[in-house]
């Protein structure tokens, strides 16, 4: 008889990433680390992306975040995907991230904040190199 509806409005993927927050954390020490930061004042969302890049390859991606579950999940998703990639392969399509997270388009703005932080980190890494 009982119909228990899931923890809307979050997909299982968002819930997993939000709860486990894989690869969350600050930059390590050392010159290999590059950081990018972005924020959006209306929702007080803040994202910092950290990339450890050695000779064109992202050895490790981390993030710091203050934001809603989709924001956190998006940061975790990108950090997971980028860890190990070469710089030319490090790309984000925000709409694809939304789709992978099964999140509503109303969350696109948040994903763009995350994207921006990672792009800035990438930029910084390139400048470092």
């Amino acid at each position, binding site marked *: 008889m009982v119909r228990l509806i899931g923890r809307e409005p*979050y997909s299982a993927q968002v819930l997993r990433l939000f709860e486990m927050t894989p690869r969350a954390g600050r930059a390590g020490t050392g010159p290999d680390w590059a950081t990018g930061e972005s924020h959006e004042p209306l*929702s007080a*969302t803040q994202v910092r992306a950290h990339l450890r890049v050695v000779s064109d390859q992202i050895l490790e991606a981390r993030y710091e975040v*203050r*934001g*809603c*579950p989709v924001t956190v999940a998006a940061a975790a998703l990108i950090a997971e995907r980028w860890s190990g990639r070469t710089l030319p392969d490090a790309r984000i399509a925000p709409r694809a991230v939304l789709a992978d997270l099964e999140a509503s388009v109303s969350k696109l703005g948040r994903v763009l904040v995350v994207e921006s932080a990672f792009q800035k980190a990438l930029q910084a890494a390139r400048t470092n190199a």
Partner: protein
Amino acid sequence: MSIYLDHAATTPIDARVVARMADVMASVHGNPSSTHNPGRIARGLVETARDDLAALIAGQSGQIVFTSGATEADNLALFGLMRGAPAEQRHLVTSRIEHRAILDAARQLEAEGVRVTYVDADREGRVPVSAVEAAIGPQTRAVSVMWVNNETGVIQDVMAMAAICRARGVIFHSDAAQALGHLPIRLCDTGIDLASLSAHKMGGPAGVGALWVGARAAPLLKPILFGGGQEHGWRPGTLPLHQIVGLGEASRIAAEQLAQDIAHYQAMTELLAARLSTLPSVQRNGPAELRAPHILNLAFGGVDGEALHASLPGLAISGGSACGAERGEPSYVLRSLGRDDPAAEASIRFSVGRQTTENDIELAAKIVENAVKKLRSLWSD
């Protein structure tokens, strides 16, 4: 299962009330409007319930109009007073922190040509008596300010407002849904003219409530639903016997143990406040004093609201009101408190009930503490 700290949204029906309702449902079959014996037995039960509710609020039984809840009572009060108002009295004063039942009815009245003044609350969540007084003009027919705000628990100074209204010849209505069973209420001889009441906030069933109609308001109030002539013509429809009996029984119990209930609610919310005050950057939404004993609304700085709520699946709590929650809108009541950057903090309304235990509170405090710490750990300023 969840720790239930959302009693202000709805509180479990008291076991004694459930037993009484089940008994009546199983054994009394009659429409209270029928003149045969089963009808009269039903009518007798309705009148006993009316007396019990009247006793809880120190009002007269004949002044109680049963409704389907406080929402309908609010609508009946506002439309009932304002739609029939003469042209030179089509002005209503209310506040910006009222329940949606008042605000949406007021908006509808505006669409019907009524002028409405919305008084702002101050940074503590209080509607200033002076601001209400200043809003009253020669055309003002009625003022409606809630007794206890359902998000912050702030108690409004309705007595002072009612006195001013009486002196100015203006009708004063108060939505007392969160006050009933949580504060001593005496309606007679206060200057309050109308009060909206609900059963399910105090151990009674949802779907039943009342509008208390004082002598001064009675001649001015017009019905909003039309039909069988029940409730002095103010509210038609077959009287829902078991529901009214449930409201009566909840009233009887509330009257009997009010002091004890209040002490318990107060102890539980203060314990929770004490436990969570060990966390940095926690603030009360609203003042510590002059709040209803069952509601504690806290703001956790540096934490995203949606993220905090999503981190607490084991807690049944509310960000704002349950109604607002459905739409996922940020709370207009909390926004009105005028904090510097409300987006940068997460607010939780904790509300306790008779069933809440110290153990619930300790556990809930731990869960919230862990969630806040975890979320804060994701970001360094």
